């Protein structure tokens, strides 16, 4: 597929926004300004951005513990995200949720939550809602390779297949689940094959190539909108930082068991640099234009941080609000 310039710049800007925002969290995490556990997605931005770019605003997504990227890619507000991570009242979840509970129903970001696989069945339900209402919406469930250990994933695949629901199962295979390489979690057979006994169309995608993800997303969305869902995408990718926080090794526990050379080889496949090179070398976007995008993004991120810092904390006497609607 060919992609128009505007779209390409959008993809670049969005990935950069996520990266720049998350990298900006590193210091505040290390100096304990931020306490809520942050699972950074640096290195994996192409999956969130490529997939969400293939959706319309009305479509639904659900995320996991590692969902800053999903939230932003679906159109969530940078300010609201920053404030939530600072657990402030102006956060997207009013400081009640923190980094692991991001939500913005207005842009179809229906929620994220850290129970592994816990939101997969919710996404199936959102697809079921769309299918009952015949409103043409598609639902996307983002989850990790570790989630393939949970039985509810298979229950979800089965039910979605049985009812031909408009849902895209997106497995971000970053090769590790916390301290466990995927080979210690399951046998050495591609994850996408779990879709086969349910007759679900499935593809392996280069998750560090935003255009590949975007194209796979477009096709999957079409399949779903035609009533021929679900689709399962296994996106191969890698996280550049720790499981939680900037670096599992510097935070005292030394639990990052990933070989340095492996990390290095993946750093070479940085999805943002890859698209940047492509923009400059093949699309003819100027280095100055790229720099301008970088500046804009940096500015946005600074503003978001200021917004978050200046937002008030929730007040203790409002503790019990929002228990019931």
């Amino acid at each position, binding site marked *: 597929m060919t992609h128009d310039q505007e779209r390409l710049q959008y993809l670049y800007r969005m990935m950069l926004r996520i990266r720049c925002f998350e990298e900006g969290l590193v210091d505040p995490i290390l100096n304990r300004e931020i306490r809520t556990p942050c699972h950074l997605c640096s290195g994996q931005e192409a999956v969130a951005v490529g997939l969400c770019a293939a959706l319309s605003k009305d479509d639904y997504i659900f995320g996991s513990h590692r969902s800053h990227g999903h939230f932003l890619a679906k159109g969530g507000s940078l300010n609201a995200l920053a404030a939530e991570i600072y657990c402030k009242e102006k956060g997207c979840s009013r400081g009640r949720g923190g980094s692991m509970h991001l939500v913005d129903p207005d842009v179809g970001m229906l929620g994220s939550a850290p129970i592994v696989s816990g939101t997969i069945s919710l996404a199936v*339900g959102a697809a079921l809602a769309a299918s009952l209402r015949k409103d043409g919406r598609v639902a996307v469930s983002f989850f990790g390779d570790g989630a393939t250990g949970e039985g509810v994933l298979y229950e979800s695949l089965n039910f979605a297949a049985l009812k031909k629901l408009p849902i895209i199962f997106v497995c971000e295979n970053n090769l590790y689940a916390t301290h466990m390489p995927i080979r210690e979690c399951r046998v050495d057979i591609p994850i996408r094959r779990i879709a086969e006994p349910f007759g679900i169309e499935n593809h392996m995608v280069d998750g560090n190539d935003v255009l590949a993800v975007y194209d796979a997303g477009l096709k999957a969305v079409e399949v779903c909108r035609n009533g021929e869902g679900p689709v399962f995408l296994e996106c191969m990718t890698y996280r550049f930082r720790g499981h939680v926080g900037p670096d599992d090794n510097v935070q005292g526990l030394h639990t990052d068991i990933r070989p340095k050379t492996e990390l290095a080889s993946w750093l070479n496949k940085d999805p943002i640099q890859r698209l940047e090179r492509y923009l400059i070398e093949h699309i003819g976007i100027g280095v100055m234009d790229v720099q301008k995008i970088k500046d804009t993004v940096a500015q946005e991120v600074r503003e978001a941080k200021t917004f978050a810092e200046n937002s008030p904390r929730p007040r203790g006497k409002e503790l019990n609000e929002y228990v019931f609607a």
Partner: protein
Amino acid sequence: MSSPRNLSYCQAINEAFHQTMEADPSVFLIGQGVKSPWYVGSTTRGLIERFGQERVIDSPISENGITGAAVGAAIAGMRPVVVHPRMDFMLYAMDPIINEAANWFYMSGGRSNAPVVFWGIINRRGEQAAQHSQAMHAVFAHVPGLKVVMPATAYDAKGLMVAAIQDPNPVVFVDERLLYGHAGPVPEEIYQVEIGKGCIRREGCDVTIVAVSLMVHEALLAAYQLAENDIEAEVIDLRTVKPLDQELIVSSVKKTGRLVIADAGWQSFGISAEIAALVSEQAFDDLKEPIMRVALPDCPAPASMALEEDYYSSAVDIVEAARKITRERKNIWRAR
């Protein structure tokens, strides 16, 4: 309201579905056995014919995934009822019920709610043994963010189901298969029984009996027997287990000074404990006697009918308990 007909408890639930589904296209039913009377009696009669298989979804045996799908559909704007034809099966679905649904509104800071009904049927006795007899309302009552209702009558079965479906929060609706044949007056039109409000089924001044679901009927039987011995029991039907109608309970105990609690779940760490704790906090000075609890012993459900007889409590046990705390009238008992 129109003049009510007599309907059975399960017909009343059936009518709640017909009327809520008719009134609101976002209401739908999903779960194991929605098209099988073996599972759900006649609670779902005529629904598929009227609303189609799309809105009455008999599901694979996937309690976790299906319950989660109901929660997700609720988050996406629908009003699902997900049935578990035995409460025991809900143990596979605790993650979507507790981790997800119960916490959802709070952890999104009020930005997103999950109006889903978790319908769990207690299906006990009949030598079905430990995995097919459990009542677990106390577990759900413990969890913030969930409401728990337990109708004792046909009227409440309909009204509480309607209220549960129309509530913007996750509600656990727990009914009792043994009550499905129980009949009572039920108005024709759609109506709610307010969640969080109990009611007095019988007035009395000597002892308060707080009961729920099946045990309300045992409590009324007990009250009748007690009255023959000049003990006037006030029988409270909780209707809602969470949030408890504290005021109703406390003000009755303030009047009678005595309390028997009759629950059909396990006693230890069960709902009877919370009610006892509540009363001993809020009506301490009015309590004349120790609180008595009539509930299941710390024991799984046995198969053998011979053991079942001892396992389940009934009016006799309530009478016995009430008798113990109306001891200044002991002479009356002796006389007979």
